[in-house]
């Protein structure tokens, strides 16, 4: 496809790919691609979007583009990029943006920075603590949870840098964080271990993915919904297993004090 890098099908494809890779919903990616293609008068444009892949077929200036397939392996949610892509598609739709310009903008959007590490650490600490309070923990529980949350985000950063595979990351980081939670609890900080652990791992737990999978089912994207649901339950299993192992070990050493 090198020779056609300025075609509008290519543009629509890249936008859909960027949207999906940054965690947008299926129907948003599909709609955006169709809108972009329609506003550049592509004669024929068909697309099928899945949670982890895009298929495109189209006719432009009499040339037929057979099939373009892209497999998207890892999704890393970046709402800033989704929002910027949305803005871009709105401008394209109003005719305020040429194809060349749009390609440059996409490249810029893909370079949008991530949040600074220290900000993310602090935010994760606070968010975990407040989740603990929402679930009914006391302020002391929240204090313990915030330490765990802070530590968890750092672990995730390390795993992300070393490109460890997803399930392994979840297994290991949940067990390390629950160990930390148990140690803090044993040291006397907090009085409800269950609440501390839930608060600490809320950053990992795929609740939103599960909800999105049901939303996909309601939109009749059955395949995408199934993919997401299996992923969510596997991740949940990994987290549960990581924590279960740690709690079993601790209760073997210390007698069943820590069993939830």
């Amino acid at each position: 496809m090198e020779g056609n890098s300025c075609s509008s099908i290519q543009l629509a494809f890249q936008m859909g790919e960027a949207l999906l890779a940054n965690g947008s919903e299926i129907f948003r990616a599909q709609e955006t691609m169709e809108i972009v293609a329609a506003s550049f008068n592509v004669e024929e444009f068909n697309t099928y979007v899945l949670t982890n892949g895009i298929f495109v077929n189209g006719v432009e200036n009499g040339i037929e583009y057979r099939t373009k397939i892209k497999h998207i392996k890892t999704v890393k949610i970046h709402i800033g990029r989704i929002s910027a892509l949305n803005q871009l598609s709105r401008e394209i739709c109003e005719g305020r943006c040429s194809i060349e310009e749009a390609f440059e903008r996409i490249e810029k959007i893909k370079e949008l920075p991530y949040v600074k590490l220290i900000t993310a650490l602090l935010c994760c600490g606070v968010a975990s603590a407040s989740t603990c309070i929402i679930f009914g923990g006391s302020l002391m529980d929240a204090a313990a949870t915030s330490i765990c949350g802070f530590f968890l985000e750092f672990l995730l950063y390390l795993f992300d840098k070393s490109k460890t595979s997803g399930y392994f990351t979840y297994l290991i980081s949940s067990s390390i964080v629950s160990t930390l939670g148990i140690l803090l609890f044993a040291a006397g900080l907090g009085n409800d271990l269950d609440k501390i652990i839930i608060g600490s791992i809320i950053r990992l737990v795929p609740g939103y993915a599960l909800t999105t999978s049901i939303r996909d089912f309601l939109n009749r994207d059955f395949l995408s919904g199934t993919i997401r649901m299996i992923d969510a339950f596997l991740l949940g299993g990994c987290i549960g297993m990581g924590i279960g192992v740690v709690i079993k070990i601790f209760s073997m050493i210390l007698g069943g004090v820590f069993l939830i």
Partner: protein
Amino acid sequence: MNLLLIIHLMLQLFAAFLCSSMFSIILHTPLKQCKFAGISGTAGWFVYSICINHGLSNTVAPFFATMALTWLCRIFSFVRKEPITSFLLTSIFPIVPGAGIYYTGYYFFMGQDNICAAKALETIKIAIAIALGIGIVLSLPKFLFTLKRVK
């Protein structure tokens, strides 16, 4: 007694605000939009607490809470000219059945099959309730959210 309840509710609402807005920072939302995610998250949790206090089950309460917060999110998305995902994704964090998934995995591993099945069923029910709440509000006509008719 009453005062204590109110203080407790205030603390929880503040926690819900922090939870939603902090998670939206972690997920790289533009900083200007984070407080709006926080506000709709708080509204969602407020409705949820009221529903639970009035004796609704923990699958019906998320449904109403999600409808309320999605309504707010749609208004924000029209006012701020942002995709609704920016607000919706993080403002349902307090309600989403994340803990349920974890419990399912935990009891699955611990070999307590009865609790595992019960938790899995509850998780799915809550997820369906939330998805229905979002779906219903998203399919309502636009003029309910643009605020342009009220002049």
